[in-house]
């Protein structure tokens, strides 16, 4: 791999590449995100945003208690979020643990959901604390089972220790396994990286290493996809595009629970990376509860009143 000509795979070149990044001023980033949160999205633009957000949802279940039945229900919901309204689009993908991938893929194909992807969380999700051999096997299993998207976690311990080259090499290896079969999303767990400088550094590291998407969080650690963190990542993909002419996707996950939050995310995308990113191939939202709120708001826009929650299906 040539890493877009940005690094040559050596630690020295990676250090130079990351060292050239400018810092992020926390107060300024917070202020910009807060300003964009004041955008007032109404009527036709709200309707467009709701449908767009639905197509970007990675409908997720990542529980120890997951069963084939639960995953099949999730897949059904993913293909047809509102059984009473065929104009509601399908979501982008379902996101499950490794052992549920083949069940999800088979069921999706069975019910006409070939267009809905299956994302598998990988590399000893959520902690990433396993040997490289295990992480490789974990990923290989998911791809063999039919995953079209791999959501890997980085080794935050190594990152915080400054062992960037190890983090980089892991991403490179997992990307190699993904090959052309699966898209790679790299999860930073920004709640553990803490500073925006780290988020920016991790973004550029992962993009050079071959990530197709950069993703905020596992959903297991709070805070997760805060607006300023997503802002910093969107700035990173925008700048990476101007350096390489390649568009990397962004996936906020965790903490985006209602339509208002989702629309704020779309505003961030629109005014930071730009409208080119407003597509499920470049922006996803990892969520579980969000989908139903989007459906409720959609019904409200059509009917003029809030329906009882019983009019949306729980799974």
């Amino acid at each position: 791999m040539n890493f877009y000509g940005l690094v040559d795979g050596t630690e020295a070149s990676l250090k130079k590449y990351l060292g050239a990044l400018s810092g992020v001023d926390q107060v300024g980033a917070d202020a910009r995100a807060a300003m964009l949160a004041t955008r007032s999205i109404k009527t036709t633009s709200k309707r467009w945003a709701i449908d767009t957000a639905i197509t970007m949802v990675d409908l997720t279940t990542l529980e120890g208690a997951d069963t084939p039945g639960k995953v099949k229900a999730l897949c059904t919901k993913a293909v047809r979020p509102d059984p009473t309204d065929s104009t509601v689009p399908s979501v982008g993908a379902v996101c499950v643990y490794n052992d549920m991938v083949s069940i999800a893929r088979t069921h999706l194909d069975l019910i006409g959901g070939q267009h809905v992807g299956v994302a598998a969380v990988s590399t000893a999700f959520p902690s990433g604390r396993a040997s490289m051999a295990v992480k490789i096997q974990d990923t290989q299993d998911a791809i063999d089972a039919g995953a079209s998207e791999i959501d890997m976690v980085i080794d935050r311990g190594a990152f915080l220790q400054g062992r960037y080259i190890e983090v980089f090499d892991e991403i490179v290896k997992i990307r190699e396994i993904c090959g052309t079969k699966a898209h790679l999303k790299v999860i930073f767990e920004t709640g553990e990286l803490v500073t925006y400088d780290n988020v920016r550094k991790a973004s550029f590291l992962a993009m050079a290493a071959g990530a197709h998407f950069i993703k905020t969080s596992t959903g297991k650690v709070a805070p997760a996809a805060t607006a300023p963190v997503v802002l910093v990542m969107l700035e990173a993909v925008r700048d990476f595009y101007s350096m390489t002419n390649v568009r990397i996707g962004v996936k906020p996950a965790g903490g985006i629970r209602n339509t208002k939050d989702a629309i704020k995310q779309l505003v961030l995308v629109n005014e930071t990376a730009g409208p080119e990113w407003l597509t499920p191939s470049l922006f996803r939202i990892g969520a579980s509860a969000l989908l139903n709120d989007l459906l409720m708001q959609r019904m409200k826009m059509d009917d003029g009143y809030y329906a009882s929650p019983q009019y949306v299906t729980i799974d």
Partner: protein
Amino acid sequence: MEDKLSFEYAPAPESRAVVSIKPKYGHFIGGKFVAGTKHFPTINPATEETLSAIALGSKSDVDAAVKSARKAYVTTWSKMSGKERGKYLFRIARIMQERAREFAVLETLDNGKPIRESRDVDVPLAAAHFFYHAGWADKLEFAGLGTSTKPHGVAGQIIPWNFPLLMLAWKVAPALAAGNTVVLKPAETTSLTALLFAEVCQQAELPAGVVNIVTGDGSTGALIVNHPGIDKIAFTGSTEVGKIIARAVAPTKKSITLELGGKAANIVFEDAAIDEAVEGIVNGIFFNQGHVCCAGSRLLLQENVAEEVLSKLKTRMAKIRVGDPMDKNTDLGAINSHEQLLKIRELSAAGDLEGAERWSAPCELPGKGFWFAPTIFTGVTQSHRIAREEIFGPVLSVLTFRTPQEGIDKANNTPFGLSAGIWSEKGSKVLWASRQLRAGVIWANTFNKFDPTSPFGGYKESGWGREGGRHGLSAYLKGVSHE
């Protein structure tokens, strides 16, 4: 779903139903609205719609206002305890908060600034100034200004059109807290929120004559400045008019403070957080259409990051939403008056003529009203007019420097000295630079941030005295000894 890529924000207009504008206004003298004689129109600069007719204050109006202010000072306000004065100020602050939407909508209609700014900046800050100064009213002897301070008496205050209500608050709140009474003249194009403030004074049952508002143009202002019954003059406006006022006041016993023009340097060093610096540059010059005396109108870029900053700045500027100020998503509103628009055009044309390169954000400007697209000039040098004269519009002059010292030298090479900005992630450089800069307000890694506790004012031709904080309070007291 529709296959469209762009996220068009549907119009999100704030309702103007919350305000009722009278067809004609008089002055507010002695606690009452009194009819004027001659009137002039005030318009909405975004639509050129006439909003109302404003009275042109004459000599007899100013005489009546000064007389009423003197009477209130002698009989009521100077005798009242600080604690009681403070209660009135707290009451005014609370009513301003309660009527915040009304103030914001009226300000936006009359001034042309975006509702987002009047709602989120002007009105909350104006109320904050009254809250802050209300707290000082009964604690003046503990302000570190000496224990035998006294108010001046009657203060004549002349305010500009860029932040009509906020500048009123900056003037009226400290004057009243210190025990003065006031005669205030709002700017001729933006009188409406001052007249709404007069209603608030009535609602707060402020004793008659403590606040008097006489509307009018420069001739009315001159009557106030030259009135023998006034003890203190406070003016915010252009350096040109400030000099005239200084000359007029010099042979008198009047005390004076002036907040004048600026040509602030916003200095971006190579080690700045670039994305946030770009936000700060945008906020520095395009906030309030650049109608800001402390605007960061001279961008000084270190040459090794100049290209990157400029490219990011242009990308960011293309996202600025220009248009209907009443729309909640508008970032840049209308130029306040036709006269100001002509001035901006004239100076921009001078920039072209002197060989600077103009770039304007691609945006559609409304057909009616006064508009100017956000614009930058690159290739500007110290000897260009647009590097020296205040444009007071959404026009940024971009200069470069090679070493930190050269940046500082260029920043200080101006007759003005109101504000400056420093962008660097290196703390020692920020401290070093802030000590070298000759400006009253220096922002580090931010710009255009205001707070009633922080003194604001200029060096050199940017003004005399300070407003805000304990320093601002001292301008409304005599016998001040700095302990």
